[in-house]
């Protein structure tokens, strides 16, 4: 089974994403801030990470940079989830090392498509 780590601090969003992923038969683990997210990547070695960018303690960009700088984990694909939808936000996320980018409110069809193409 595919293990997905969701790093998201908003409880409503956590609930929404988790329920959607479970329906698609993903195994889901949750982290509520950047530091926890980074820790869980190292301990659980998930297949893919869905990463909110505005996070307490350590923001999503820094989490992505840290992962991509670590040779053990830099193969793990990261999809940025963010409400930052202005010009340049996409580039900023990709520059930080994210492999894909999805704007909130999440279009789940598009999200699953991206997850599948990254996991192939």
């Amino acid at each position: 089974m595919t293990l997905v780590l969701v790093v998201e601090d908003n409880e409503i969003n956590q609930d929404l994403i988790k329920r959607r992923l479970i329906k698609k038969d993903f195994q889901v683990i949750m982290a509520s801030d950047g530091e926890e997210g980074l820790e869980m990547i190292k301990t659980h070695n998930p297949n893919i990470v869905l990463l909110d960018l505005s996070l307490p303690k350590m923001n999503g960009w820094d989490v992505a940079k840290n992962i991509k700088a670590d040779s053990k984990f830099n193969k793990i694909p990261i999809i940025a989830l963010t409400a930052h939808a202005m010009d340049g936000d996409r580039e900023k996320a990709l520059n930080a090392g994210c492999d894909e980018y999805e704007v909130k409110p999440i279009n789940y069809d598009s999200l699953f498509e991206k997850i599948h193409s990254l996991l192939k």
Partner: protein
Amino acid sequence: MKSKNKAHEDERLKQLKSYNLLDTLSEKELDDIVQIASEICNTPISLISLIDENRQWFKAKKGLDIDQTPRDVAFCSHAINGEGAFIVENALNDSRFKTNPLVLNSPNIFFYAGVPLVNNSGYKLGTLCVIDNKPKKLSDSQIKSLEALARQCMSFFELRKRKNKYVRYLKETKKINKILSDINHLGCSKQYLNNDLFNSFLKKAIHYFGLEYGIISYIHDNQYFVEYVESPNNEIEAGSSFDLINTYCFKTYNSAKTITYLNIGSDSEMNGHPIYKNMKLESYIGTPIKINDLVVGTLNFSSKTIKKEKFSKADINFIEILADLISRELTIQSINNSLNNSNKRLEISLAGADLGVWDWNLINNEILYDQRWCEMIGLNVIDVKMHLSSWLERVHPEDKIKCKKAFLEYNEGKTKSYSMVHRLKHTNGEWVYILSRGRFSKFDKNGKPIQFTGTHLDITEEIRNKNELVLSEKRLRSAQKIAKIGDWSFDVNTNQINWSDQMYDIFNENPEQGPPSLDDHISSIHHDDIVEWQEKVTACIQKAKPYTLRFRIINKNKQTKWVLAKGRPSIDIEGKIFLIHGTCQDVTEQVEAEEKIKEASAAKSAFLANMSHELRTPLNAIIGYSELMLDDINESLDIESLKSDIDKIKKSGNHLLSLINQVLDLSKIEAGKEDIAKDNVNLSDSVNEVKDMIGSLISMNGNHLKINIQAKNNYLLDKNKYKQILINLITNSLKFTKNGEVKIKVEEVNINNILHIKTTVTDNGIGIPKDKLNLIFNEFTQADTSTTKKYGGTGLGLSISKKFCEILMGNISISSTENYGTETVFTLPVTKIVEIKQKEKIKRNSNKNKNVLVIDDNEHDLLLISKAFKKSGLKVKQAKNGAEALSIFTKFRPQIIILDIYMPEMNGFEFLDAIDLNEIKSNILIYSSESFSKKQKSDFLKKAISIDEKGRTSVLQMVSKANKLLESLSKEAS
């Protein structure tokens, strides 16, 4: 030191030019000098070289074809800098000259010896020099000879200059004579030519009288001089002289009257007279010639024949007129003589034929004016009365006193001559500017002046040009001052900077200290801008590239200013840049405005980005749960799970709504459209209402609320805004505090003698880091972005609260210690209305006697409001505008005024300004059918407060819209 050199050089050039040598034809005497010089020194070339601004020009030359060379390559430039002979024996051995084009190319100067031509004042005009195309050495005697020749050359220059001056002088004198000859024609037929004017007189008169002899005599010291004479066979010669007593004229002279004899042979008194004995002259008519009432000679006619008829009155008139004419002519000659003796005359005469002449007899105020004098003011000499009044009545009234003063100063010896500019009225009605100059031309025995003679010069055009020049200069300066533009120049050779007045303003320098040195100027340029400045200026100096550059300067007060400088090169005839000049404008204000716009635009972008983020978060939930529910409905129908999801959608929807409301509030505030209401507020009630609204939030984090209301009166205050501010502050405190206490304290305070309500909200929550405190009132700022997620909120609450406080002319501040708690305080100015209400209640009983003045231009409103008052039994008068109200006001003495603001002719505010608020004890209610502008409100509020401050009972209120006014009236009535 440099400027001193420059002054010396300027003076040298001036002196050089005064000799009028440059670019003139060759002169034999000077050609001889160079010939001799070249022979003595045994050189092929010899020159007399004169050095002006940028070249040496050869007044005399031998062995050279060119007329001039640029100054910077000239050997002679070096020669005039030193004393004595300047000698270069071999230019190729001299570092100063070995690359000089005059050495390397034709005429291949190898040897050069030049002696400066020094004038009497010590200025070196140029050199006498000798040149050879091979190295050479001069013997001492050769050098001495060359120096002697140079002195000769110089003394020739001096002689030449004096001669020129003399020639000029002669020319001027001729001009003067020409003018004076015009005067001679006064009263005479034009057929007389100047030279034999008097003889023409005499001939004509002899013919007229039918006599034989005619003489104009000059009498001095009892000697009778024949000046002009007509006699048969020229038997009397001009220039001969007699004892006065031996002439018939002695009596004429002594009596100063016209004397006639018809038959002297039969006149026992006269027939023994020597003339009768010698010449047997029988008849005689003679009259004195007077100048300034002094008899200077006679005009007399006589004959050997006995005159049968008496001389008629007409005859006597005729001879006296002639004598008068002669007297005038002699006066003019005396002017001529006296003026010829003075250099001043020369100066005046430079204007040549444009001079008008006047000659004033100070005894009888008769003035002779010449043709030109009259023409200047559009008169014809024939029509002009030869009297002071002719001048006086045409002098500009403002100038009369000046003229008198100038005359008195001259008369008292304070000035050397009378010289003054005054206006005279031309016959065409315009004023003509006249330069009048004069001096006393004759004195009596006691040395008292009796004749005053001078000239007029029309200088209208010059004055007008000068005025226009001054005016346009003034305008330029004033425009520069307004635009903060100065102009400057920089001399590339001397590094001298020149500044216009405005430059000193921009750089905050003292104009008396003069422009700065180049180094000082550079040090005032901002260090970050200096490289670019230097690049531009260097390119301008070296490559003639004009520039425009905006850079910062630090002026004397250590202020940083932005200036926009433009520079242009000035190029001399040889294509060299000698000066750059340009403008410098203080553009600090513009730059600051641009920066503000940039900041504002950046803030707007940040706001939009934040808004987008803030709106997406709840929308995310709403859409997400709706989708989930749609899925779930198909799969299972777990009602509990659906309920919980619907609740989440509702909460997110509400959050979205409050977000949008607050953003709208903010934009309303920013657009200045937020109305201020004046409600009758009981603060205790208001705080409790807030407490109810917050409700469950209080207990959510286990907090409790402590309320302390010390302001127990009723106040005029915008209730909704007060409550909204309080809600924002309390919810913030509750959110960031856990198991703690939030305290609210409301009290009255006096700030600058104005009553305020001070509300303090204190908590013992997480506090705010010091570095975030100053950001806390900005939109979408919470101390940490993550706090938004943790604690919720729009991040707009404090920002809106602050803006509400500003609108209500109050203040808000926050202080906090991290992990200890936060205290927020806001104060709002208020009007206490408790006592007034009580007073009103008492008064209301006696309201029957009160007068009400209703002022409104809208007739409908006017009637409506008036009716409402009449119903309560008050006396009501109506006015349609401020002006009408004013006329009613003084008699009617209203206790209550209902005032509309927007009215034609005199609006409400103008009306308030016009009435004496100190005089009245009226309650004034102000309202408007349109909303008040922000400025009007704050002005009015200030006024209202200041009036209350003085302890008067007047209450000023503002109500927007007439229907609201009626509402409040009906409330009061009930």
